[in-house]
Every structure is written in C-alpha cells, then in structure tokens.
C-alpha cells in the first residue's frame, strides 16, 4: 500500500516537473541578467573569469551564505560526533612504504596546486571552493598514507575562523569606503588578466580557499577519529 502511494506521489511530481519543463525555455536565449553580466562583468569587476565575477562580486552575498552553510555543516558534524567519542583505540596498521613515500612526495605538490587554483580564481576556471577542496584532498592522502599523523585542531579552527572573518571584514570595509555598499569592489581593478587585478575578488577567494581547505580537512579528521 505504502509503495503504491509513494509511486503515485512520485509520478505526480514527475508529471508536474515534466510539464513545467516543457514550457520553460531553458538555455534558449540569454537572459537579461546573464547578458548584463557578460556585457559589463569585466569592466565592472575587473575579473576576466565571468563566473568568478558573478560568484564573488555580483552575487557575493550568496557566496558568503554558502561559505557559512559549509561552516555550519562542519561544526554540526563536530558537535554531533563530539558527544559520542570515548571509544577504545584500535591498532592501526601502518601503510606500505610505497604509499608512505608517495604521500610525502605528493602532499606539497597537491597543496601547491590547490593554492594555484584559488589564487587564480579571477583569471582561470576554479576558485576558492575548488582550490580548498584540492587542499583538503592532500590531507586525505596524509591520513591514508602517514597513519597516526593528525592536523592540529587549534590550527585548523584558527585558519577557518580567520578565513570567514576576512570575508566579513572586507565586506564591512565596503560600507565605510566603498560608497556605503556591503561587499562593494572598492580596491583598484588593475589590469585585466593580470594576477593583481579585480580588486577584492582575489582576497575573498584566497580567504575562501583557506577556509574551505581547513574546514574539509577538519571534517575528514572528525570522521577518521570516529572510524578508529
């Protein structure tokens, strides 16, 4: 009976979405908002990557929210797991020599690559979130290869907090000097396509990169602790 009801509800939902999609011109013409971003993005924000100019500048407030969503999820996980620690330690078998050496070799390279992605967020595809995820993947490798090593919880918490604070403070400074707008791009835009361009965008993306990297590394740390 339950299965029939569920099936019925799902088909109603699918029918509804299908009918609506049928009438919606997805991807047909560029929208008014999209055209504005493409036409004026470079000049208004100084970022040659238009996606970044939308993510960090035009809709920067959303990005602040999304950074917060990830932050909430990471602390929430920490809070839930913190209440159920106190398990006896199991012996961890050390990784093989090949994996161990490989991890030590790759770790700095992955960090470098992650940093490259978030520092160049306003020029090339990628940005703070992607770069941060790459950085965190370096820590996954450490947990796999050099078992027993841990990141310092204080350090990751501090980096996380500072990353978030930089975002807010850069935004608030805009209230004072950027014509009274929160998150307005008040720094000089520089020359298009150069590293030092696009005003506040690279600063925010670097802050996000650090924040996301330390946050995801912290999540992995919590989960590793739980599984031991």
């Amino acid at each position: 009976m339950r299965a029939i009801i569920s099936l019925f509800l799902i088909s109603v939902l699918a029918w509804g979405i299908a009918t609506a999609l049928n009438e919606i011109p997805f991807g047909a013409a560029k929208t008014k908002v999209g055209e504005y971003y493409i036409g004026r993005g470079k000049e208004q924000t100084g970022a040659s990557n238009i996606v970044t100019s939308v993510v960090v500048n035009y809709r920067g407030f959303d990005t602040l929210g999304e950074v917060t969503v990830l932050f909430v999820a990471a602390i929430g996980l920490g809070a839930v797991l913190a209440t159920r620690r106190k398990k006896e330690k199991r012996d961890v078998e050390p990784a093989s020599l090949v994996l161990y050496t490989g991890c030590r070799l790759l770790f700095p390279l992955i960090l470098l690559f992650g940093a490259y992605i978030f520092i160049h967020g306003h020029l090339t595809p990628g940005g703070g979130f992607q770069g941060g995820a790459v950085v965190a993947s370096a820590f996954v490798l450490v947990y796999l290869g050099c078992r027993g090593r841990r990141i310092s919880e204080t350090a990751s918490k501090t980096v996380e907090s500072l990353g978030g604070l930089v975002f807010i403070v850069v935004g608030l400074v805009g209230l004072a000097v950027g014509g009274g707008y929160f998150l307005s791009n008040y720094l000089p835009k520089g020359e298009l396509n150069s590293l030092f361009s696009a005003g506040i965008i690279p600063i925010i993306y670097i802050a996000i990169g650090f924040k996301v990297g330390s946050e995801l590394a912290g999540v992995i740390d919590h989960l590793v602790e739980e599984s031991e």
Partner: protein
Amino acid sequence: MVNPVLLIAVPLGLAFALPLFGLISKRIVKYIPVVAFIFNFALALRLIPDVLKQAIVVEIGGFPPPFGINLVAGPVGVLFSALIALAGLLVAVYALAYITEGPKEKYHMLYLLLLAGATGVVLTGDIFNLFVFFEILCISSYALVAYIGDRAGIESAIKYLIQGAVGSSFLLIGIGLLYGLFGTLNMADLAQQIESASSISVFVPMVLIITGLGVEAAIFPLNAWLPDAHSSAPSSISAILSGIAIEVGLYAVVRVLFTIFGATNMFMFFAFLGVLTLLIGEMCAFAQNNIKRMLAYSSIGQMGLIVFAMAIATSYALTGGLFQLVSHTLGKGLLFLTAGYMIYRSGSMEISAFEGMGKRMPLTSLAFTIGAFSLVGLPPFVGFPSKFLIVRAALAKEEILFTVLIGLVLLGTVIEGAYFFRVVQVLYFKKANGNSERKDAPVAGLIPMVVFVAFILVMGIYPQLVIEVLNSAASELLHRMEYIRSVLG
C-alpha cells in the same frame, strides 16, 4: 543612517570569530551571542521609525536589482528581525546557566548561525539568497536537535534532516524552474513578470516552493518531524525552534504566496489547511503526557491558526496573524524555558512529575502559567488581543464559510485551554509526593522568564504599542505593487 545588512553581518562575523575568542578564554564564549543580539535588537528598534515611513532597500555590492542581491528592510523584515533578536537575546541569557555540558563552543556558534540565517531569510529580497539563508537556518537546527547526543536526539535529528533535505530540494527545483522561466532571481522582478507566463508553468514551481518551505513552517501534512525534534532538543533550542524557526518558515511561505505569486486564488485552500493543521495539532497536544511533546504539538496548532489568519487576507486578518505570531513567539518561548528547569528539577518530562511544582518552584510555575494563559488567549495577556483580532477579521468577512471555520478555530482554542489548564492544575493543586524543597531556577534562567512575562503583559494591556508596526507590515504583504516599486523604482 545605519545599514540593515549589519543585522546579518554582525552575528555571522561573531560566529566566525567565536573560536578565536575561545582561544583567549573559554569563559567568554557564552557571552558572545548575548552581545550579538543586544546589538541586533537595538539596531532593529532603531530602524523601525525609518522603515515605517519607507522600506529601506540595500543593494549588496552596489549593483542595482535585479543584477545584484538586495535586502528589503520593510516593516515585515524589521519586525521579524526585532523578534528574532529579542527571543535570541533572552534565550542566550537563559543558556548561560542552562548549557553546562557537551561541546559548548559549538553550541554557541550554531546558535548564532541559526539566528543569523533566520534574520537573512526575513530581510533578503532575492529568492536564491533566501534559499541559502534558509539552509543555514535548517542545517544548524538539525545539529542542535542532536546536541544532547542521546539516542532520541540523534534519531529525531536524522528524521528532521531527511524531511528537511527533501523539502530543501523541492525548494531548489522550484527556484530553478522560476529562474528558467524568467531569467531572474530577484523577488520583486519575479513578482513583476509572474503574470506574463502561462499558468501551469508558474503553478508547478509555486507548489514545489510552498511544499519545500512548508516543511519548516510545520504545515500539515509536512510536520511529522516536529514533535520529535522539538521535544528531544535542549529546552533552550526547543524555545528557538518553536518560537523562531517555524515562524520564519511561515514568513517565507507568506512572502512567496503574497508577494511573488500574488496567489489570491489559493487562499481558500490555505484557510482549510490552516484549520486542519490547528485541529490536528491541538488534538494531538491534548493526548500527550510528555510536557515537551505537548508544547511541540501546540506549536503546530498555533501555526495552523496563523496560516488561517493569513489566508483570510484582509488587512485586519494579516495584522491579527502577525500579532498572533509575535504572541506565539513570546508565549511558547517562555513555556519551553520554564519547562526546561521544571524538567531539570523533577528529572522527568512527564506532566505527572510536576505535581506540587507551584510550591517547589513558585516563580517558574507562575511564569509557566502566564505563558499558558497567554497562548490560550486570556486577557490581560498578549494572546488575547491577537486572537481577538483574528476572530473579528474572520467575522468581518461576512461569509458563512469563514464563520464556520472560525467556529472550528474556537473549538481548537477550547481544546488548547483544556490541556494547558490540566498542566496548571497539576502544578498548583496536586500535592508533591516526596521532595518538596523550595528551590527556583537560577538567576540567569529567571531573568529571561521575567522579561518574557513583562513583554506578554505590556503588549497584552497596551496592544497599541505594536499595532502600528503590525499594520504597516500587513499592508506591505497585501500591496505587492508597492513592494515591487520600492525595489525596482
């Protein structure tokens, strides 16, 4: 002039900075939410005279709508921000003494973020931004429900998480469809263009968005998560979930229905749904022996009443509905806070364990009684003028149907009275067996209770203090063209 964006940015910034304060001293961490909400409450009060004249539209990043994101600090937004800040402040003071175990630093961070998310939802003028803040609100509630870390807490948090996540997905699909249709996410711009599209392609996203938001607003039949979640969370969080989170969910439903879709033809349906939610909530509450579950079901009933009031959709009714929302926040917040210490003292959530509490915890019991009387709608408490306005608005419609519905609402109120009086009777007229030592809640617990009681009494005796704000909030919701004009110029 002060910028309303600070209402969101300051709590967010303090939440980010909280671990850094924690490195300096573990003891100052719990005062940070108090500081944040003193600031927010003062700022919101300071903004009220300005927004009564004209809504403040804040462009984030200096890009004009619909190209950038904008906040709309109108009477509705500022009223809700003030309410969130007030409840947030009082519950933060309560938590100073109440939260003594567990990862306290994380509790305070999640608490700040929950209310920052709620403030974002009520202030934003962009529907995707609303979704983002809504997620902040929901995810921090999931985590806080599980804060105690016992089996019941984790189980109900997961239940809440699953239903909430399905709801959020519906919301997101709905927003995606709207964006596909109109190529804009700005609420005023959407509202302006909504009539230009065919009805089915607007109807489907509307149903998806309302369903998604309805999960958080606890509208029947989307509220199965609520009794478990509200009863297994710490009492301070129950107060916020019942007093703020579901109200904000309901705000979002109302804003979407009234402003974006202008869906006047749906109101009859919502009037029925509201009364149904009310009756089911009150009847389930009547059947409970567990105090927190009873209060949680009573919240469902109250939400039903507010939905009904909103669905009458006259200026009177909206004022009444918003007033009921304020009085529910005050009343239910107070009830959960008092219940928290009564449970702590008696060691049980069973109502029968509260026998003789009137002697053992006289102040706490008195505060509970006042909260209960206010929710039932007895004068001179704030619940009376708010319920009275709703009844008057329903009768002023002069339609048989609304008269019948308001009759059912009053029946719901009678049930509500019955179960609240039963608890009050247990508090005062049953002898305590065993321990009857007199010891009230600690001072940090009593202060917020006294302030809640003061607000309940003052607003109950002088409703004209808030009625002007409520009136202009009601007219902001009713006149969508005004809203569009104030944003798009």
